[in-house]
């Protein structure tokens, strides 16, 4: 077994992608300037959020996310054994590196600070968390209020009569800066509680593993399941709409044609209008839900692709018409959770350990709603707006002849946008043609070519030198990168291609034909009883969880969204198999053991 992964400096640029580095921030690419550090540390490809090439502007949100995570670990809470998570783009793919604190004396020295800072948050969790939701809703309102107004032919008279003293272009530039600032703020809010939430979770995990060395991870995860979280609300809304359609007798209308055609056919009748009113109510905010991880501008948002939620509603109507229950087994999950907790607790005979078990479980449950809810508000709702606003701005560039398509704006880095805006402003102010219309179409074509070439590259799962142990809470909980998975990657996938091992993420045993899909577009193809095999799954795929037999993902840990959602829906799941989509072909029969984390290809 090799003792290190390939060097990032040995990675070749795919033919046709030359010059890709210039599309990303100079500080976010590998460089000779920091070679000693970069070559000697450990980097893993973030398949959980970015299984594909990251377009240049999309890198903005990822960089903000990682910097937010890092600053809370390093500067806010002083997590004793972990600093931040470093980020680099390589051939357009995102690699991350958890930065640990190696010196035991330094870790020890950080503990009192952590106790004071994190302790305050834990002790005042409810009060601080109660303030979080209004805060993030206000921020979302501010994002929604952003408007990119085209530059006027003449400034309005009011600018003069009111003696404003500034022009429209300043507003335009400021609005872009404001969007950037609000995006960063969104990501600060994102991590206000999450680092501590994960740390509390990991602490409970570690404690249970200490008491019961063979306890499966999912047993521990189940002890905090069955709590209502907003992340599941979009799916609940779809079920309500399906039942309402049946109740109002408009199920046939709802089920016919495209979403737009169905809406048109419902207009006019009382029942139809009643249903449409409910449909409109559900949209805000719950249809601000991405079909992907939310980290790509190309991820489809329900609100802008109404055929997606409409398709799910139709599935639920069909199911309800067959007299099958649409209810998520909430009560059953909660009852099972209580049984599990009571029975494990009964196996602990030391009263001190039992009290500690209860205390840590209480904390893990307190943090759980946040650990899940933030995902809807930030990655789904917040991001949906950011992508939409950026598209508006792209449309402005289209109007000025800079771009052919509004989405071309995502091929610019975030700091290139003000430069292009300045060019537009300059032409407008001076009264000449901007350079943009002759510069950007050629440049956009070149960049499309680079993106295409990068997409053909196959990123290795990891680079550099692995650490002995991985202690950064997010790396373990969310990305599922553990000391064991690193060992597995080093060993390669060549031992038995018909057997895969991952995290036993959600219990149960299932056999069935595989359906390998690589993006949300494929989920419509899933048939009853099939086993979904995907690089990762998004919470918004939940509506198909009622009909598939199991889920297998390439990436993600025990607390990845795929894992949590599968547990809540009682669907067997194995996450983080690394090679699932590579080794499994659609149609092959699989055996998925959600209890042991084993996936076997049966033919």
């Amino acid at each position: 077994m090799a003792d290190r992964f390939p060097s990032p400096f040995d990675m070749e640029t795919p033919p046709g992608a030359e010059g890709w580095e210039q599309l990303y921030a100079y500080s976010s690419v590998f460089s000779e300037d920091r070679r000693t550090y970069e070559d000697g540390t450990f980097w893993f490809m973030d398949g959980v959020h970015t299984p594909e090439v990251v377009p240049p502007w999309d890198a903005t949100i990822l960089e903000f996310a990682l910097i937010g995570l890092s600053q809370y670990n390093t500067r806010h809470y002083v997590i004793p054994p972990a600093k931040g998570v470093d980020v680099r783009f390589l051939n357009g793919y995102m690699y991350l590196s958890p930065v640990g604190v190696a010196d035991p004396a330094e870790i020890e020295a950080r503990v009192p600070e952590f106790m004071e800072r994190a302790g305050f948050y834990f002790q005042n969790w409810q009060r601080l968390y109660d303030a979080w939701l209004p805060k993030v809703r206000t921020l979302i309102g501010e994002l929604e209020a952003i408007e990119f107004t085209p530059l006027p032919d003449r400034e309005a008279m009011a600018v003069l009569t009111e003696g404003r003293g500034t022009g429209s272009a300043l507003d335009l530039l400021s609005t872009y800066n404001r969007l950037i600032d609000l995006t960063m703020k969104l990501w600060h809010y994102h991590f206000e509680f999450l680092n501590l939430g994960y740390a509390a979770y990991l602490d409970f995990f570690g404690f249970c593993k200490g008491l019961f060395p063979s306890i499966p991870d999912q047993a521990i995860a189940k002890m905090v399941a069955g709590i209502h979280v907003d992340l599941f609300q979009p799916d609940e809304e779809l079920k309500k709409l399906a039942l309402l359609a049946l109740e109002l007798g408009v199920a046939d209308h709802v089920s016919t044609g495209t979403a737009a055609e169905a809406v048109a056919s419902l207009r006019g009748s009382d029942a139809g209008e009643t249903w449409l009113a409910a449909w409109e109510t559900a949209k805000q905010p719950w249809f601000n839900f991405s079909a992907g991880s939310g980290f790509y501008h190309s991820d489809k948002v329900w609100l802008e692709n109404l055929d997606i939620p409409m398709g799910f509603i139709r599935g639920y109507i069909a199911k309800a018409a067959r007299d099958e229950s649409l209810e998520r087994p909430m009560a059953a999950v909660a009852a099972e959770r209580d049984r599990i907790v009571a029975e494990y607790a009964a196996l602990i005979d030391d009263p001190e350990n039992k009290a500690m078990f209860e205390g840590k479980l209480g904390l893990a449950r307190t943090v759980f709603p946040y650990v899940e809810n933030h995902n809807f508000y930030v990655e789904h709702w917040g991001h949906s707006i950011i992508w939409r606003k950026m598209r508006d701005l792209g449309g402005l560039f289209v109007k000025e002849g800079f771009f052919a398509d509004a989405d071309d704006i995502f091929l610019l880095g975030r700091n290139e946008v003000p430069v292009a805006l300045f060019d537009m402003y300059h032409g407008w102010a001076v009264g000449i043609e901007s350079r943009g219309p002759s510069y950007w179409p050629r440049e956009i074509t070149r960049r499309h070519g680079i993106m295409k070439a990068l997409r053909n590259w196959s990123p290795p799962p990891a680079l550099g030198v692995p650490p002995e142990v991985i202690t950064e809470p997010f790396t373990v909980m969310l990305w599922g990168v553990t000391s064991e998975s690193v060992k597995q990657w080093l060993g390669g996938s060549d031992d038995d291609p018909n057997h895969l091992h991952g995290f036993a993420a959600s219990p149960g045993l299932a056999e069935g034909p595989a359906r390998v899909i690589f993006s949300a577009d494929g989920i419509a193809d899933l048939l009853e009883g099939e086993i979904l095999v995907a690089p990762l799954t998004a919470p918004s795929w939940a509506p198909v969880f009622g009909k598939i037999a199991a889920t297998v993902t390439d990436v993600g840990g025990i607390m990845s969204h795929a894992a949590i959602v599968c547990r809540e829906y009682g669907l067997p799941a194995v996450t983080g198999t690394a090679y699932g989509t590579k080794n499994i072909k659609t149609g092959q029969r699989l055996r998925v053991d959600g209890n042991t984390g084993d996936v076997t290809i049966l033919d």
Partner: protein
Amino acid sequence: MSTIEWFHTYDPRRAPDMGGKNASLGTLTLAEMPVPPGFAILASAYRKVLADGGLDTALHDIVSVVDPRDADQVANAGRRARELVIGAELPQSLSDDIVDAYEELSRRCVTPDIAVAVRSSATCEDQPDASFAGGHDTYLWIRGAAEVIAHVRRCWSSLYTDRAICYRREMGYVELGAAMSVGVQKMVLPRTSGVAFTLDPSNGDRSQVAVEASWGLGEAVVAGAVTPDNFLVDKVLREVTRRTVATKTIQHRVSADGILEEVEVEPDRRQAPSLTDDELRTVAALALRAEKHYGCPQDVEWALDDHLPPGENVLLLQSRPETVWSRKPRVSSYHAASPLSYMHRITAAQPLS
């Protein structure tokens, strides 16, 4: 004087006269666990046979002078002692009691000359259970009263195997107090059998049941002649949490003409799991019943009979206390080892309001 104790009417006051194994079978039967029916020939019957023939002092004289470190001496004394026991005269009343009991068992099982297992269950005056693993003989698939009696004698004589002599000397048991009860129990012809521990023997985790299983009779597993399938079942989740299916090459079974034989496992079954998940859960549930009954971790032998309905098809053959981990204090390994010990300090010091 009574010489026979049926498991289903077991009187716990008889325990010292039955040896650990037989007493345990009685206890489990009384607790309504699925134990194959049978009876014990009491150790006092064995003692009486020896005393009547004046053999007890003869045996004592042979064995008590042996130097356990001298293998030749032990072998010589053992052979002489076993010859004495095998040749002892059986009083007619005892022989009648055994025949009657055996015939009664056959009637209960609605099978003439029911096939039985004849098992040793040693005892000592101050040591109700003087058995040790593999120390005394067990005979399988015995049919007919005469054969049963012949094998009861063999079990008696196995009190003087070389290892048993040394074991008692090393443990300091009183030689004169040593005696043998013998169990006669309906034979199960299992599709699969094995052992189970009500904790994970690799780390002492009491939330798990470890199950070892292989095809056919359990002798191959117990004797270590085959690498069994190895499973871990979580007591609380009631799910299989670890699964290692071994290549199982041999099995013990009874041939069509009633001969117990060791045969190769058919190629297509070698790498197949010898238990389904449902069957595993049944085995684990049974082991847990035994643990609950005794109030401490158990090490059980079980057998799965395909002819019985699912859920009731696993039979308990033996249950004894687990001794390795049960004696260790239980501590969490978390605090010192975890890189998250800092979190532990915060949750321990500042429990959530």
